């Protein structure tokens, strides 16, 4: 009853301070950007500027170069033109193909920032392409696909899990400290101290407001961007667990400080550190252990599962269970700390 009273009071404050409207507006702006600015799929093909010596069959070579479907071949008249275009387009590579001593010479021209490993791959790929038609060539590799129905999300939809993570799941991490210190500044906490209500009820009502905000922004955004291409049951379960976790971390950090100014610095550092998981989300082959141990890393991928036709249920609910338990632990710890400091 006391919790319900506190919760309703806190919800009123969030409307009165326009906080909740701002969060909804932000979600709608994000939806507008996704729908009207971000294309359904980005073209990630790179341009390959090529010059092919006139003594060679250029059509066959272009076909061979295009076989891996990862680059657009643009034919040019000279090596100088290739170098000029490489300077104009820093994401591109160049290739000059000529005949030297009865052998075809592939001269690959890169920008200079590419790693040695990348250079080695380019070299071996061209060699493999060049030898596969030889009679003595032996291919003894086969490709096994583990998932029978793996699908890739469109680039637009692929951005949605990051919004759900940073905005809806971590909304409390960013804001809950502000709520608590605002109560302190305005003397609400002193008034609270003389009521029979418990500290945990006070903190839980803050978590409730953050949860409502997170669910509201997460569901509005998903509904408008993904429509029916999301499993809302899994999404709600995941939003609840991750939002509670984010808010409990926010509470825990706040419990070490006595003003918003002090707490905000630590919260910003935590938030930005957690946000680094997004780099590995967008570049799955970049996966250093320092990023994989961040809690935001499995969260981002669990949100992605929500949009797949055949989601990995075990992965989603192991995240739900794990973050719910962690949220409970951090909440209890924060409660223990706040009992000593909240009304000071």
């Amino acid at each position, binding site marked *: 009853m006391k919790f319900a009273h506190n919760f309703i009071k806190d919800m009123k404050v969030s409307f009165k301070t326009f*906080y909740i409207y*701002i969060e909804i*507006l*932000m979600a709608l*702006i*994000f939806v507008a950007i996704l729908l009207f*600015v971000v294309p359904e799929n*980005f073209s990630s093909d790179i341009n390959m500027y090529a010059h092919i010596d006139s003594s060679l069959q250029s059509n066959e070579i272009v076909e061979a170069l295009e076989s891996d*479907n*990862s680059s657009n071949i643009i034919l040019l008249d000279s090596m100088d033109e290739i170098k000029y275009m490489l300077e104009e387009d*820093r994401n591109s590579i160049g290739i000059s193909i000529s005949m*030297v001593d009865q*052998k*075809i*010479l*592939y*001269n690959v*021209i*890169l920008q*200079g*920032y*590419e*790693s040695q*490993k990348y*250079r080695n*791959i380019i*070299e*071996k*790929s061209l*060699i*493999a392409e*060049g*030898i*596969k038609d030889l009679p003595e*060539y032996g*291919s*003894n*590799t*086969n*490709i*096994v*696909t*583990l*998932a029978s129905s*793996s699908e*890739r999300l469109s680039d637009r939809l692929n951005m949605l899990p990051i919004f759900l993570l940073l905005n809806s799941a971590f909304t409390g991490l*960013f*804001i809950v400290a502000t709520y608590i210190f*605002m109560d302190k500044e*305005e003397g609400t906490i002193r008034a609270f101290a003389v009521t029979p209500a418990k500290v945990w009820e006070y903190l839980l009502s803050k978590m409730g407001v953050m949860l409502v905000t997170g669910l509201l922004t997460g569901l509005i955004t998903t509904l408008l961007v993904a429509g029916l291409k999301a499993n809302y049951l899994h999404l709600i379960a995941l939003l609840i667990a991750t939002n509670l976790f984010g808010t409990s971390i926010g509470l825990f950090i706040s419990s070490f400080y006595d003003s*918003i*100014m002090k707490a905000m*610095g*630590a919260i*910003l*550092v935590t938030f930005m550190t957690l946000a680094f998981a997004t780099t590995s989300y967008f570049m*799955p*082959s*970049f*996966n250093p252990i320092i990023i994989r141990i961040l809690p935001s890393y499995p969260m981002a991928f669990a949100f992605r599962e929500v949009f797949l036709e055949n989601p990995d249920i075990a992965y989603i609910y192991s995240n739900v269970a794990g973050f719910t338990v962690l949220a409970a632990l951090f909440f209890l710890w924060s409660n223990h700390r706040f009992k000593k400091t909240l009304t000071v």
Partner: protein
Amino acid sequence: MKKIFTITMRDIVSSLRDSMIIYIIIFPFILAVILRMMTSSVGATTVNIAVDNSIDSTMVEYLEDFGNVETFDSIERVNKRVNDTDDVFGLTKKGLTYSIIQEGNERASSVDLLEYMVSSYENQNLDLPIEVEVSDIGWNLSPIKQYGGNLLIVFISVFGGMIILINLVEEKQENTLSAVNVSSITRTQYVIGKGLLGFMVPIIHSIGILAILNYGQINYLMVIVVILCIAMISVLIGFLIGVTNDNILGAISSMKMLFIPILGSIFGAIFLGSQWHYLLYWSPFYWAFNALNSIILKEATWSGVLLNCSIIILITGIIFALLSKKIKRGLN
């Protein structure tokens, strides 16, 4: 002048007392160090391979020339690794046949690369009908470093405005803002004194970030000019949010809103084709990103930088004209 510095110093001392300014000053440098570490790692890994003990050590050594290789003691563990969320391919050998294991949701061309490498290894004794030479044009700046540093600088420029708004809201809550109104300090002196921090902080950040990321001989004077211009908009927004909000909750969430136009403008400038850039002309952050990009690429000219800056000032001026009454009212 002395009064202006008194206001600025008062804000610095107040922020130092709360350690906020220390976080705000140091944090961007930590981000720059992380970005620097990341840019070197991103270039180093191109394909991740998990192998079991059917793959001999010579093959493992060979594969390490192309990517990151992890060794496991059973095929089940290789499969488990492949099924993890990141992009890793498995490789195992039965008899003379290699099996490349993929989860199925990786980039289509990535698996071909591993197939090429394995085929080349198995056919390395063939008399090659081709020769491959790899050279470069000496451009060492990767796109991730080029855009990453630029994004960080423009994004961090908001922090100056954030300090101003937090200080203003605190002054309102403690009623010191009303006290200033009856002191000998003029409104202009007060605004300049408050605003100075919003210009100083981004300049310190941008120079530090550029030095940490080591872009070589770039024109720091041009950087300062661009930062001063973009800081104007952050300071203006800091003042606007600070004076229109009586509580820190509304102020912080309003400031959070600012992240959308900043990130939207920058990602738009990076990912949208140039024919769509006119959609971003309204954003001062787009023009700042443009100017900084040419400085980082060492292609900037003073006329180009000043043109970008003039547009930022013009947009800031229009916003100021629209909002000045609201700010004045809030300061009263």
